């Protein structure tokens, strides 16, 4: 399907925005956690000493790591598409695979 470069770029930025919003909610759950459940299996596990509280700095590091990979893949994708600016709007598979 042939589309203009502007349409492709708009789709890209909409995708980036959607990921950014979702990623913010993912980060929020770790950086500003809600209180743990006060009833049910979680509370039973804590009361019995089976569930340990996770290390906060490590939790933050783990949740940031995938963001770096996500940003890298978006930057790489953008560069790949715009490396051949002025070329046809659809990047060929051979360009991607080479």
């Amino acid at each position: 399907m042939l589309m203009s470069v502007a349409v492709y770029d708009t789709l890209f930025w909409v995708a980036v925005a959607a990921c950014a919003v979702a990623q913010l909610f993912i980060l929020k759950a770790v950086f500003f956690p809600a209180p743990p459940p006060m009833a049910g299996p979680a509370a039973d596990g804590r009361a019995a000493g089976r569930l340990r509280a996770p290390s906060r700095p490590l939790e933050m590091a783990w949740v940031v790591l995938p963001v770096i990979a996500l940003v890298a893949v978006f930057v790489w994708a953008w560069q790949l598409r715009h490396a051949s600016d002025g070329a046809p709007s659809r990047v060929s598979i051979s360009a991607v695979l080479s």
Partner: protein
Amino acid sequence: MSASPVPGAAPAPGLGRDLIALTKPRIISLLLVTTAAPMYAAGSPSIWTVLLVMLGGYLMAGGANAVNMYLDRDIDDIMARTRLRPIPSGRMSPQQVLAFGVACAAAATWMLAFFVNVLTAALALAGFYFYVFIYTRWLKRSSPQNIVIGGAAGAFPPLVGWAAVTGSLDIVALTLFLIVFYWTPPHFWALALMKQVDYGRAGVPMAPLVWGERETMYQMLWYTVILLVLTALPWWVGAFGLLYLASAIILGALLLGGILQMLRAARAGTPWSGPAWWVYKYSLLYLALLFVAMAVDRALAR
């Protein structure tokens, strides 16, 4: 390797069946789909290359699963769904299981390095180490991020398949890795929501136990949003065509719909286990069909 029954063991269903059970064949079948499909998406591999990579992949993943059962033998006896495994049921000794797992991984590394290429073997071995040490040994019992970061182990197969055909990695391979990575939390948290009692009893801090059910469901939603965007990225860079894009949109919309239905039920205070089961089962089909769509799209384009 001798595998004589442990004294006082439960009736043996047969050593062969136990060895196969140690590899968790049902789980591996999906890993093999996410290995084979990228091979056909990346090029036109010979049937022998595909068979070798499938066998090597099965041995590596099976070895990792066996070592996982060795390391988790203390909690496998506590959880209902793992109590009948070969070690907790007493049919095999822990040493036998560990030896089997290491032997499988060693054989897979040699086979992939000798008959395919070193990069393929290195990636498969990295997946093994990631699963055994990062997920099982480190994160599984210490962090609710266990499934998120540990999920990277399950994301190695597309890299293995891609490297087996091209001998290198590129943005499409990295995107396939991230697709499996972001697919893993919604899939496993759907199961964790329904097995909270088991995980709580075993002291495994799965997300529902740490964040609560509602927050876990929202997290499943956010991971799915990123997953759906990532599935469109290979089309955007021109690696796959419209057939793939249409498949990704339809399959993704169904997954998103299932998660929203589960969330709606939870917010309304009505039973949500039905939709959660559906999400768990459908997410397996989702990933398999998505990867098949990649291979078919490329096959039709050639």
